[in-house]
């Protein structure tokens, strides 16, 4: 196949991203600009920034694969989890946005709420930056495989080129660059997904024909019973218990994702903070249904696949040249727009929480911008090197972290923001218990019961008990968090 059309569009895309990065660099004058764009974003930036950060390569390649394999139950397994996450984010929104404080990172929020610098700063700094580093590594490994198929690049060069682009604009322009590139990337990914969905549905003879075809699928690579692709649990092939675990896991992951917190910290008003997720939810719901339709149209267009993950590339290859280039740019946009925000979150967490608050407390504003750029670059380079080596251990640790993030962060965030009696001791306990209990459950617990379903409620109950037996939080903290202004 000829890659020339794809390459032309890709090069134009890269130049555009670097140009936006340059504008972000010129706009960045101090640490407030670099970390949180001087808290200046309105809905026009917040909605695409959130929506683009939300859709990653897993959403596009993974979900099309799952819908190809199991039909409409993909919405139960993944869509409901996302939608539960949007609802939770909406509930948390105006609490995470707090004008009484000037937070840069999630650690700042936890330190303020739990009136503790000693434990919270170090723990949150390490845990969050490590988690984000793993996200970036996994994102980079995902992109390598996609670029190999669409641009004819080797895995090595695909990772190097993609890393060089998003590292350059993220490191130089900080939050301005991340947000502005995300606005463009969101437009590209939305056009790409909608175009791919529209054309694949048309080629399949319409939604009615797709629904008819999948109603008759049985056996095959996912070993389905008749009618399974129209069923809530794919007639047992996608067990409901596991889907519920996934819904809770994805849902509780959303309000504790530190790269979403960064968006709240960068927003200019409480009304915007309380609006952008709700608006994004409608847009994202349309895009997820479109993604599912791409996968299910595969049952008409490429019914003979032996690996469900091949469905998206197989369909894109069938699109006319111009459209395939648009879709590919859309995918690269989706991946980069998630990774840039995660990289900035990792860099900011190391620079603000570990360097400026623990190692060098006297660092000047100007110096901190320089140091943060160096730190973010170093984090990005480490992620790139690990992604190039691709050790199997990284995937295992990543799977651990994906479960540990909600068990560690969700209970302290939930109680901290909604129950004023929650004390420092309970907050510290919640973090440690979530980490140890989550780790033990994943290692020794029954694999058919998700850790989040067990650890979260236990952690919340224990935190409530500890709060009742420890001294009340200071009045100032209660006023700043619970008195509406």
């Amino acid at each position, binding site marked *: 196949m000829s890659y020339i059309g794809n390459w032309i569009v890709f090069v134009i895309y890269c130049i555009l991203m670097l140009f936006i990065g340059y504008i972000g660099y010129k706009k960045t004058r101090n640490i407030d600009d670099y970390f949180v764009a001087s808290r200046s974003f309105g*809905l026009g930036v917040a909605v695409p920034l959130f929506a683009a950060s939300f859709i990653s390569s897993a959403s596009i390649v993974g979900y099309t694969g799952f819908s190809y394999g199991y*039909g*409409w*139950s993909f*919405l*139960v397994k993944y*869509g*409901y989890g996302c*939608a*539960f996450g*949007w*609802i939770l*984010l*909406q*509930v948390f*929104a*105006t609490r995470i946005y707090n004008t009484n404080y000037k937070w840069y990172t999630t650690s700042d929020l936890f330190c303020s709420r739990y009136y503790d610098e000693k434990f919270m700063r170090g723990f949150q700094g390490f845990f969050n930056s490590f988690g984000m580093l793993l996200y970036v590594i996994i994102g980079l490994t995902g992109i390598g495989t996609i670029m190999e198929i669409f641009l004819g690049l080797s895995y090595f060069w695909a990772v190097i080129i993609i890393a060089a682009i998003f590292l350059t604009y993220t490191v130089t322009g900080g939050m301005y660059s991340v947000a502005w590139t995300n606005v463009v990337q969101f437009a590209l990914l939305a056009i790409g997904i909608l175009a791919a969905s529209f054309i694949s549905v048309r080629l399949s003879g*319409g*939604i*009615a*024909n797709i*629904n*008819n075809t999948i*109603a008759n699928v049985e056996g095959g690579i996912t070993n389905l019973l008749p*009618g399974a*692709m*129209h*069923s*809530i649990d794919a007639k047992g092939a996608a067990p409901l218990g596991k889907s519920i675990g996934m819904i809770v896991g994805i849902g509780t992951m959303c309000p504790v994702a530190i790269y979403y917190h960064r968006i709240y910290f960068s927003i200019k*008003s*409480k*009304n*915007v*903070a*309380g*609006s*952008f*997720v*709700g*608006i994004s*939810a*409608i847009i*994202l*719901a349309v895009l*997820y*249904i479109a993604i599912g339709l791409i996968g299910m149209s595969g049952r008409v267009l490429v019914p003979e696949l032996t690996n469900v993950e091949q469905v998206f590339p197989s369909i894109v290859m069938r699109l006319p040249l111009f459209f395939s280039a648009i879709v590919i740019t859309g995918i690269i946009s989706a991946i980069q727009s998630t990774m840039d925000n995660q990289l900035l979150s990792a860099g900011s967490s190391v620079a603000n929480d570990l360097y400026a608050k623990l190692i060098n407390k006297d660092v000047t504003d100007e110096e901190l911008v320089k140091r943060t750029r160096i730190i973010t670059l170093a984090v990005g380079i480490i992620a790139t090197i690990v992604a190039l080596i691709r050790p199997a251990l990284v995937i295992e640790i990543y799977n651990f972290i994906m479960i540990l993030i909600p068990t560690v962060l969700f209970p302290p965030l939930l109680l901290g923001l909604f129950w004023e009696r929650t004390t420092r001791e309970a907050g510290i306990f919640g973090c440690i218990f979530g980490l140890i209990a989550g780790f033990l459950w994943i290692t020794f617990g029954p694999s058919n019961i998700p850790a989040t379903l067990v650890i979260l409620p236990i952690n919340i109950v224990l935190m409530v008990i500890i709060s009742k037996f420890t001294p009340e939080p200071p009045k100032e903290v209660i006023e700043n968090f619970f008195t509406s202004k």
Partner: protein
Amino acid sequence: MNFTLESLAIVLIFIGMAFFSFFMSLPNILKHLKTKGDKSS
């Protein structure tokens, strides 16, 4: 569009959840638009 009752319910629940999130944000959206309107006038 040849959905079965079950698959139609799956899709509608998903759309319903997204709209629920939207309706939760509606008061803030209206306040935001009002503030913008007041500023421009």
